C-alpha cells in the first residue's frame, strides 16, 4: 500500500466506524474516535471498564494521523501512519474484525424493483479464505468460494463476482427467500473438500524441496551423533530433531477472512 492508498483506506475506516473528522489537511487528518474505534485502536480496557462501571461520560481519544510527515503543519504533534506502523496494523485488524460476517440481499435493478409478482432469491454462502503455504518460509493467497445452499453448486471467485452487483442489508420489497437445503456445516465441508482437491493438484515442488531440506538436515544430525548416546546427548538429539521438523515441515493452513450469506436472483453467480 502506498501513502495514498493508506490515506483513503483510513478515511473509509474512520467513516464506517463513526469517527468524527475534525480537520482534514493535505498531509494529515485530525479525528476524534468513536467509542468502538477507541476500544480497538487504543488498547485501554481498564479505562473503558471504569467508564462503563461508573457510568460517566466517555472521552474517546483525538488522534492526529499524519500521511506525509515532510509536509505536516508545523507544531502538529501527530503520528506517522505508514504500512508497518503499529497503529495502521491495528486499523487493519479492526477493519477485519468488523467485517467478518454479513447477510446481504441483492439490490434489485431499476424497474424490476417494482415488479408486481414476488421474485425468489436463492441463498449462497460466500467465504473468503486466506490460504497459507508454510515451510521455513511462507506465502499466502486469497481464495474466494461460494456455494449454492440449495443445489450445492460451487463457484470460484465468488467475491469478485459479487462485486459487480449491489448489496443491501434488508430484504427488498417484492422478494422472498427460498429455504436452504444445505446446513452451514455441510456447505463448509463441501468448500473444504474443493480447497483440498485444489491444493493437491497444485505445483507442490516448493513442498518437496522443503521436505528434502528437512530430510538432509535430519540425516546430518544422525551422522553427527554416535550410535550409543548418553542420556544428555539423547535429549539434545531429540530436541534438535523436533526443531528441524518445526522449521521445515511443509504444510498449508486455511483461515477464514470473512463469510456471508448472499441472497440473489437465479443466475447471478456462475
Amino acid at each position: 500500500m502506498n501513502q495514498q492508498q493508506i490515506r483513503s483506506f483510513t478515511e473509509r475506516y474512520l467513516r464506517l466506524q463513526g469517527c468524527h473528522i475534525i480537520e482534514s489537511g493535505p498531509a494529515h487528518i485530525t479525528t476524534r474516535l468513536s467509542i468502538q474505534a477507541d476500544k480497538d485502536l487504543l488498547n485501554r480496557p481498564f479505562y473503558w471498564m471504569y467508564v462503563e462501571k461508573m457510568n460517566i461520560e466517555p472521552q474517546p481519544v483525538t488522534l492526529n494521523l499524519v500521511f506525509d510527515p515532510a509536509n505536516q503543519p508545523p507544531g502538529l504533534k501527530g503520528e506517522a501512519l505508514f504500512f508497518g506502523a503499529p497503529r495502521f496494523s491495528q486499523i487493519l485488524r479492526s477493519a477485519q474484525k468488523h467485517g467478518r460476517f454479513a447477510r446481504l440481499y441483492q439490490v434489485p435493478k431499476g424497474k424490476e424493483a417494482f415488479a408486481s409478482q414476488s421474485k425468489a432469491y436463492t441463498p449462497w454462502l460466500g467465504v473468503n479464505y486466506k490460504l497459507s503455504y508454510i515451510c521455513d518460509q511462507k506465502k499466502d493467497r486469497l481464495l474466494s468460494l461460494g456455494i449454492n445452499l440449495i443445489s450445492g453448486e460451487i463457484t470460484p471467485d465468488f467475491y469478485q463476482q459479487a462485486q459487480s452487483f449491489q448489496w443491501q442489508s434488508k430484504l427488498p420489497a417484492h422478494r422472498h427467500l427460498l429455504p436452504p437445503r444445505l446446513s452451514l456445516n455441510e456447505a463448509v465441508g463441501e468448500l473444504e473438500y474443493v480447497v483440498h482437491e485444489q491444493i493437491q493438484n497444485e505445483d507442490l515442488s516448493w513442498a518437496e524441496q522443503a521436505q528434502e531440506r528437512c530430510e538432509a538436515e535430519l540425516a546430518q544430525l544422525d551422522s553427527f551423533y554416535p550410535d550409543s548416546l548418553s542420556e544428555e546427548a539423547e535429549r539434545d538429539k531429540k530436541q534438535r530433531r523436533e526443531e528441524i521438523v518445526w522449521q521445515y515441515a511443509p504444510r498449508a493452513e486455511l483461515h477464514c477472512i470473512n463469510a456471508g450469506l448472499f441472497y440473489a436472483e437465479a443466475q447471478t453467480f456462475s
Partner: protein
Amino acid sequence: MKSLPIRMDRTWVDEFQTKVDRDSDWADWERFQLAVEAAEAEIVPTFESIQSLKQIQGFDPLPHQIDVTKRVINEMRGRAILADEVGLGKTIEAGLILKEYIIRGLVKRALILVPSSLVLQWTRELNQKFQIPAVAQKKGWMWDQYDFIVASLDTAKRDPHRSCVLSKHYDIVIVDEAHKLKNRRTKNWQFINELRKKYCLLLTATPVQNEMAELYNLVTLLKPGQLGKQTDFQSDYVAGKRKAKNEAQLREEISRVLIRNRRRDSQLHLTKRKVKTITIELSPEERALYDGITQFVRSKYREGTDLKSMLSLLVLQKEVCSSRDAVFHTLFKLVKKGEEQKEEVSPEVAHLIRLLRNVRSSSKVEQALRLIKELSPEKVILFTEFRATQDMLLRELTQAGIPAVPFRGGFNRNKKDWMMELFQKRAQVMVATEAGGEGINLQFCHHMINFDMPWNPMRVEQRIGRIHRLGQQHDVSIYNFSTLNTIEEHIIWLLQEKIQLFETVIGELETILEKMEDESLEHNLMRIMLETHDEAQIRQHLDRWGDTFHQVRHAVAVENEAKEELLRYEPTTN
C-alpha cells in the same frame, strides 16, 4: 510428495451459526469489503521477496545489509551467524530478518539475548527503527507476559529465570556478542543449546578469537553436524590452533551458516579524515603554571608516592594541559584534604594556587572560539576529558554568543537523546566529555576538536568514531590542539606522526594494545615523562614505544588474515 498436510481452521463456523441464530450484528457490504481489503494488504504472495524493506521508515538499509537479510532467509533458512566487522550494522540486519519473519507470521515469539549494557539500546532500536513491540526484561513475570523480549544473557541463564525460559518455545532466538558462546563447556553455550528455538541468529564480529574450535562450537549451536563430528573436524580441518587444512572445503561449509562483510570488501568506503594540528603558545602566566605543576608532580614522584597518589598526579599533569579550571578543581581537593588533617596548606601548593590565580585567560579557549567562528555555521563537536573544562567552555561559548550543548556519560538516556537533538537542530557546538557508549550517532557533524588529548589511543579512536562512521557524507576534519613545549606536544606526535592514529582506521586497535602487554600507555607515558628530563630522551622513548606498536600491529594483521581467509565468501557463479 504424497500429500500436503492441510490445517483447516473451522472455529469461525460456530461463530457464524450463532449470528444466523440470533440474526443480529451483521456487517454491511461496505464493511465486508473493507475487511477483505485489509486482509489483502497483509498477504505476502511469494516466498523470496523481502517485505520488511517496505515496512520501515526513517532510514535506508545499506546494500550489504539487504543482501544479508535475503541470504539468511532464502539460503540459510533462518539459522545463521552474522559476523560482519564492527560498525557495519549487524543489529540492523538482525532487525530486518526478525521483522520479515514477523510480517509473514513465522515468528510470534522472540527472545533477544544481549549483554546487559545493551538491553535498552536493543529495545529502543527494535521499537523505533522496526516498530517491533519488544520490551526489556526486568521482572520475572515478564517472560510469560510478552512475546518479544530483550534480556541479558547473564540474567536469563540463571535461575529462577533459566527454568522459565527453557520451558518455552521461541520462534527465534537472537544472541548478540555471541563469541561468549565459543566454549562448549560453559553455562552460556549449554543454555543456548538447550533453548527450544526454530530460527536462531548469532551475532559476533569475532567468530574466531583464539582457535578454530570456537567456530565449530558456534556452528554446532545452529546445526550440529554441519562441520562434521568433533573428532572428524579436528582431523579433517584443523592443522593447528589457528591453522586450517582443506581450506576450500571448510570455507564452503562455513559459508552456508556464516556471513561476514568486511569494510574493505564492500563499497563501504568511509569518507576521508583530514587532520590538522593547531599549535598553541602558552601565555607567560600559563607557562608559569604549567612549569609549576610539572615540577610539583616530579618532586612528589621522587618522594616516592603510592600508586593511588601517582594516579592523581597523572590527572593533574593532564589537567594542566587542558585548562586552569581543571587544575583548580584538583588543587582545591588537595587543599581540602590538608585542612581535614589539620595541616597547613603546604607552601608548594600555596605557590601553585598563586600561579593559578595569575592565569586570567586561556590561549586554548581563544583558539577554539576563533576556529568555531571560522567554521560557522557548520557544526563542531569539541571533546575534553574534564568536567571543569567542559563547564568553562560552555560558559565561554555562551558569552561569545555561540549556542552550545553539553554531553557527558552521567546523563540518562533521555537527556542524551535530547542533547543530540538540540545539537542537530539548534546548537552549533557540542561540548562532550564522553566518547564511548553506543547510540551516539552524530553523522550530521563533521568537524571535531580535540581540546585536550587522551593518553589512551582507544579513547581517541572512540571520539573519532562518533562522527566518522557509516552514514557520514562529508570528509571529517579533526583539529588537534597542541600546546608547544608540553607533554601534550609529545603525545600528539606519538599518536599522529608515529602511529598514524588519526588518518586511518586501525583495525584491531584494542587487540594490539592488549598484546603490547606491559602497563598501559598512560602509565608508560607518565613514567617516561617523570624519569627523563630532556626532551630528546622523551622523544626517544616514545619512538621505541611506537616501533613496538608497529611490530605488534603487523603480527596481529598477519594472524587475522589467516582467519579471514576462512570466512571469505565466494558466491558461486553459475
